């Protein structure tokens, strides 16, 4: 990445680029999902909140970030454990919240 002078100040790495690409693809995926199968209007979930699909994505991503941080603070690396928990958590959020 060093040869791209324009971007070198941002100090890009492949893993961080992949991370942002993943978030971007999530947003695109949500748009495509909503286009082909509308149903993103708010619904009343188990937390007593009215959430849209976008809200649930936000709750999933933010919660996952805290799952990873908690794991790093309490256990450390490797991070397969929190990845599994985060995936289960995101699934649960989309299913029931």
């Amino acid at each position, binding site marked *: 990445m060093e040869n791209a002078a324009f971007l*070198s*100040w*941002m*100090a*890009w*790495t492949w*893993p*961080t680029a992949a*991370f*942002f690409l993943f978030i971007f693809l999530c947003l695109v995926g949500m748009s495509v999902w909503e286009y082909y199968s509308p149903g993103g209007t*708010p619904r009343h979930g188990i937390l*007593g*909140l*009215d959430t849209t699909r976008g809200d649930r994505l*936000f709750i999933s991503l*933010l919660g996952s*970030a*805290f799952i990873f*941080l908690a794991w*790093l*603070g309490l256990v*450390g*690396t490797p*991070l397969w454990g929190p990845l599994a928990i985060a995936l289960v958590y995101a699934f649960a959020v989309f299913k029931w919240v």
Partner: protein
Amino acid sequence: MNKTVNQKAWFFVLPVVLLVAFNAIIPLMTVVNFSVQETFGDNMFFWAGVRWFEQVLQSERFHAALGRQILFTAIVLLIEIPLGLAIALTMPRKGPWVSVCLVLMALPLLIPWNVVGAMWNIFALPDIGLLGRLINGLGIEYNYTRQIFSAWFTMVLMDVWHWTSLVVLLCYAGLVSIPDAYYQAAKVDGARPWAVFRYIQLPKLKYVLTIAILLRFMDSFMIYTEAVVLTGGGPGNATTFLSIDLQKIALGQFDLGPAGAMSIIYFLIILFFSWLFYTLMMKDEAR
């Protein structure tokens, strides 16, 4: 009824998207990139993985700074929100005193942060400051440069002086917008002042109070300039809040990696609390 599909409006959002990209998203991405690397300057970076996150999350120093930050924000919110609401309730709604009160209330908000810090720094000095001399004159030992409690007291007092006005102005705007018919109905029913407050004013103020709590939470959680000018984080580390600690790591020690990791954790905490407050307070609105 057929809905017209017209997606051209999206183009009107484009300037905002570009602005947010340049002032928020690109810097945030850069911080994320810093947080997984080590640098010794000269734009040379070395991969470090999640080491900085581990280091920050497991450090006593971070826990202490976070604890102080949460305590400060909690104290400030507990004082400023009820006080601001109380002042707004006692302010006149009609007559020439309205402008006088509003201008007086707006004055602290117009003063730059570093000036507020400098003012309170001098005002509270135990030997020449008015407040410091007064408190010491009452027989209470007070020196914010040496005593932890005095430093916290001064810091909270300064923040209350600077920002309660914001809560007052927001609540006042909310109060003024309540139609007279509500009060007339309350009068017909013979409602006492407390009932008027509890069942008319407070529910109508819900949204401005949401905004006030959110703004005060975010601002006090990110307090930097006033605290640095007033105490510089001292005595010892007694008033070293997260932002001050972050600045010491990022610019004092030039540890961009740990500072990046700390920034992201800091950002996520603010994001979480802002979402929580907003969601809890807007919960009933959707129904």
